[in-house]
Every structure is written in structure tokens, then in C-alpha cells.
């Protein structure tokens, strides 16, 4: 009928059939989405990223120490203390110290200068500097989750 805006009527059986297909489809997709949520962990169970370094006197100015088992390097000078992560910013291998004071990565050949700036290879960023703080009893604490700028020095 020309001029009428009403849609074509749909047969009862067709309607029920379509409704059936759509509800089955939505139910299946919905449950798939629900299941897809499961593998993504809500909390990451991991050892705390904060660890106790020791007394400030263990790191007198002018020292440059690598902390065994933590993949962290502690640089101390007159101004204070800084902590640098030794985890390569490319794909997570552990960088090693070179004779010139810089670092190089065994996995894909990234090279860094002593300040952690990349000089060659695929690493997209400088090695990260980590936040240093002090607990109530004076022990130094490094937080591997908190990144700071290379200029930030912790004054003891």
C-alpha cells in the first residue's frame, strides 16, 4: 500500500523463529564473553615490588653497586642516592655491565650508556630509574613499580 509507513507484517512463525535464533545467538555470544573474562587475572600475585636496601651508610658517596638478586643498581654521590633498573626496556632480559661503564643486553644487542640512555639496538627507552625512599628506622627502600626521572636524587 503506497504511502504507508508501517512495516510489512511479519508472520507469527517467522517472528518466533527469528526470536529463537537471536536469543540463542545472544546467549552463546554472551557466555563466550563471560568466559573470556576468566583468564585475565584480577590481582597479579607477585612478590612486593618494594624491597629494603639496607642502611644509607652501606652506600657511601662515589659507589656504584649492583644488588644481587634484585636486578637493580645503586648509584651514590655527594647529592644522594639513585636506583636504576637493570631490566632491558626492549624485551625484559637483564643487561650486563660493560668495561666502559655502560650496559649491554645479551638478547638483541641493545646498548646503554652509564646513565641508561640507549645508544644502539632496539631498546625503545632508557633504562628506568626507580623511586628510593627511607623507612621509619632509616633503612633505604626501592620501589620497582615507581619510575622517576634520571635527575631525581634521594637526599639521605
Amino acid at each position, binding site marked *: 500500500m503506497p504511502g504507508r509507513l508501517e512495516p510489512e507484517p511479519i508472520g507469527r512463525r517467522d517472528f518466533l523463529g527469528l526470536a529463537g535464533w537471536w536469543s540463542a545467538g545472544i546467549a552463546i555470544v554472551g557466555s563466550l564473553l563471560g568466559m573470556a573474562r576468566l583468564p585475565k587475572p584480577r590481582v597479579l600475585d607477585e612478590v612486593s615490588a618494594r624491597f629494603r636496601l639496607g642502611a644509607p651508610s652501606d652506600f657511601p658517596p662515589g659507589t656504584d653497586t649492583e644488588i644481587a638478586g634484585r636486578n637493580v643498581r645503586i648509584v651514590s654521590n655527594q647529592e644522594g642516592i639513585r636506583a636504576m633498573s637493570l631490566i632491558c626496556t626492549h624485551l625484559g*632480559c*637483564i643487561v650486563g655491565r660493560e668495561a666502559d661503564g655502560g650496559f649491554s643486553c645479551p638478547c638483541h*644487542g641493545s646498548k646503554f650508556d652509564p646513565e641508561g640512555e640507549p645508544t644502539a639496538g632496539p631498546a625503545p627507552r632508557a633504562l628506568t630509574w626507580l623511586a628510593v625512599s627511607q623507612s621509619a628506622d632509616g633503612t633505604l627502600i626501592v620501589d620497582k613499580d615507581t619510575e622517576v626521572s634520571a635527575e631525581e636524587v634521594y637526599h639521605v
Partner: protein
Amino acid sequence: MESGLNRLWTNVKALPRNVRDSVMRHGAPTSDRARSQAVFGNFFLHIHSVRVHPRSLKLTTTWALGVSLVSQFVILTVTGVLLMVYYNPSVELAYDSIKDFQYVVPTGRFIRNIHRWIAHMMVATMILHMARVFYTASYKAPREFNWVLGMFLFVLGLAFSFTGYLLPWDQLAFWAITIGANIAASPNELAAALDLPKAFYIGDIQKEILLGAGSVGQGALTRFYLLHVMVLPIIFVAGLAVHIWRIRKDGGLAHPGGNRTAAGKGVGTSDARPLTPAEQPKKTYGLMAVVAGTSPHTGKDLDETVSAWPSLLRAELAVFMATMLIAVALGLIADAPLREIANPMVPENPAKAPWYFLGLQEMVSYSAFVGGILIPAVVVIGLGLIPYLDREPEPSGVWFSGPRGRRIMGWTVVFATITAVLSVAIPVKFGWLRNWYPDISQLVIIVFNPGSLLTAAYALWSLVVIMRTRSTRLGAIALFTCFLVGFLILTYVGTYLRGPNWDFYWSQADWPVH
């Protein structure tokens, strides 16, 4: 009463025969007809067609690569199940349980060797099988989808190896998976270079789903074990079943003259013309006449074909036995490697992935995102699309599509070799953008690196070939040959010419001693 007992007795006497008949619906396979029925009526055998072209059975048609792959998968499944008897997927015990296979479990070392070596062999065979299908143009209609399925199985096969690699929990395992997981996180590199907000760091989500944690630990081992022994095998078997079943539905193996009919069904006659009544099959093999319009292989060229039983089954058994022989020989000759137990503090130097990923490791050593995600995705999708982009009708089953194809292939090998060698030699000799312009933006390095330039050169070369020859098939030959040559050369470089810190060395003897 009595007659009841009699009947029971008769049934008891007939028991063996009746049980047999209830399982198998056909008589003893003594006649051609009975053998065909056996293949057609058997759940496992009916994945074959009933009759095959003798050409399909010739070694030079397939080099037996596909059936060998199935055999290797069977061997991997059996040895894998045996390994599961003692393997313990926990970070405390995994390494020790592999050690037990080496020194305590009876035949343990032998079984583990076979599992490891056949896993390597399977990757190599997949590549060879893909090359044979490609160079004989066997991906053309109606077989496009089976090529796509094959690519899917190829990716699954690599996933098998990747997940299996973590299970021994040794140094090799730990660092290979650490790198792999960080590659999954590497879209972050792009997000960071573009200064996008944190919400765009999808890499973190991918990595967490893969590892179940922020770094490789028990969560990762549990997930990889689950994938390796459960999820991947189920998906793989389903994909494999369709892959093989499609061969029959697509009209058997591609051969010149064996051509397409509507929907590729019932292929086997030499032309697509419907059969005249006089040509209609006189003999039909039960249901087979109903399945396809022209019944499969029972048409007029019946005389050209041979029965799948025994010809095909015999060939398959021969390939399986040969594969077994290789497996046993490898298992006896060489021991599967096992490094020191995983140490999250000290990576191996150099830390190398398994050989088939070393080409990728080369690429990743330019940019994690481009080399580890973008280029592999482009390659897999590009190869998968070949049958849809090259639709030139041409006789399938001819190696290299004749002399023109061979010539294009020769030139492509030359071009692809030179460019691949240059892509390695230039950065080794002269460094790359960051050495020249220390302050260059990371985005430029991500986009313009030896790996992405090499990929672009290959794509460009194929386009040039298409333009010059006006043939998409020749363009496809150029593209696929580039892929093979690039893969081989980068794999060679990664395997033999890279030493500590991924530096370039002509031989391992030149490596610095620490």
C-alpha cells in the same frame, strides 16, 4: 523352553561373527567393491576418497610430506602422553621431572628425545609441505580454503612448540618465554612512541592473559601446560580433520587435467561437462552415487583410478613406518638439550630462541613491535590471501608452473638473497639510525628498520613482477620465494652468525671468552 535354549545356543555360536558384522557392515574386503565399501563405510577410513588417481600416489607429487606430518603428529601425541606420566607442571618440580626422564625413568630419555626432535622436524616439514603445495599451484580453486586451513595449522604448530618450550623450566625455556611474553606486550612500544594515554596499552593486557601474572612464573607454566597438552591438541585435531576431509571434497589431490566442477564436488573427471546418460556410472557404490551429482571417481575415468584400499593405505603405512624409523634413529643418536634450571636473574648470553624463531629474533632485534608482531602478522595474512589474490586458472599440480615460473623464481632467489644479506650487513657494518642520529625519534626507528624495509622490498618486488609479467601467479611465486629465502637467510644468520650480546661473529670460535 527347549527351543528358547536352542536359539540361545545358536546365538552364542554365532556370537563372534555377529559382533564382527555389527561393527563392520561390509563383507571381507576381497573384491574391489567390498574394499571401496570398507573405505566408505568406516568412520576413520572414509576421510579418504574411495578411489585415487595413481598420480596422487607418486612420490614426486607430494614428497609424502603431508602424510609424514600426520605421522609426526601421532608420534608427538603418543610420546607426549608418555611424558605426561611423570612430568609435573610446577616451578619447583618441572625441571627435576625432566631430569628424571634423563636419568631415572626407563626409556625416558629416548621418549623425550623423540618428542623433542620430532617437534623440530614437524616445523621443518610444515614449511616444506607448504612449499610443495605452493609451487605446484595446488592452492587454486576449489582448494583456496584448504590453503587457509593449512596456514592455521602452521600457526598452531608453532604455538605447540612455543608452549612446549617452557615446560622443561630451564634457562632456555625461561628466557625464550620472557621474551615472547614481552613481544605480546610490545604494542605498548608504539603507544608510548605516539604518546597515547595508558588506556591504549593493550600490550599489558595481552601479556597478563598469556602469563597470568606480570612476569614468567607458576601462572605462566600452568597456562602454557594447559595450552600445550589440552587446548592446542583439541583445536589442532579438529583443524587437521577438516584439512584432510577437504582434500576428498575438493576432488583429491590437484593434478593436471583433474578439474573443477560446480562447488568442486565429485571432481575427478577431466572436464566439467555433465555426464551423458551413456556415460553415467553403470556401477555405483551404494550411497556414493547419492553424495555428489556425479559420483566421486566412479565416473567415466574409473579406469584411470585405483582403489584407495590397498594402494593408498599401503603408501600411507610406508610413510608412517619411514617416519617412525627417523624418529627412532634421532632418539637414539642425539639427546634433547636441557640447560641449567631457570634463573630469573641471569639470562643466557646469547639467549637464543629455537632455530625456527631465530629469523624472527633477527627482526625483533630491530624493533619489538614491528619485528615480533607486525611483520609476522603481515606475512601470515599475506600468505593466507595468496589463493584469493591469484585466481588465474591454470593446471594445478605442475611444478613451478613451467619454465616461465622457474625463471621468475631464479631471479627472485637472486633478488631476495641480495636484499636479505644487505639488510643484515648494513646494520652490522655501518650501524643504524640511532648510531647516526642519536636523538632520532623512536617512532622513526620503529617504522624504518632493516626488517620493515626488507619486507617492503619483497612486497614491491612481487608487485613489479605482476606488472611486468601481467600474471598474478608469477607474482605469487615471487612473493612466496622471497618469504622462503628471507626466512632461510635470517634463520642462518641468527643461528650461526650471532654471538654474545647478539653481536655479529663469523664463527663461534671468535666469541669472546668470559
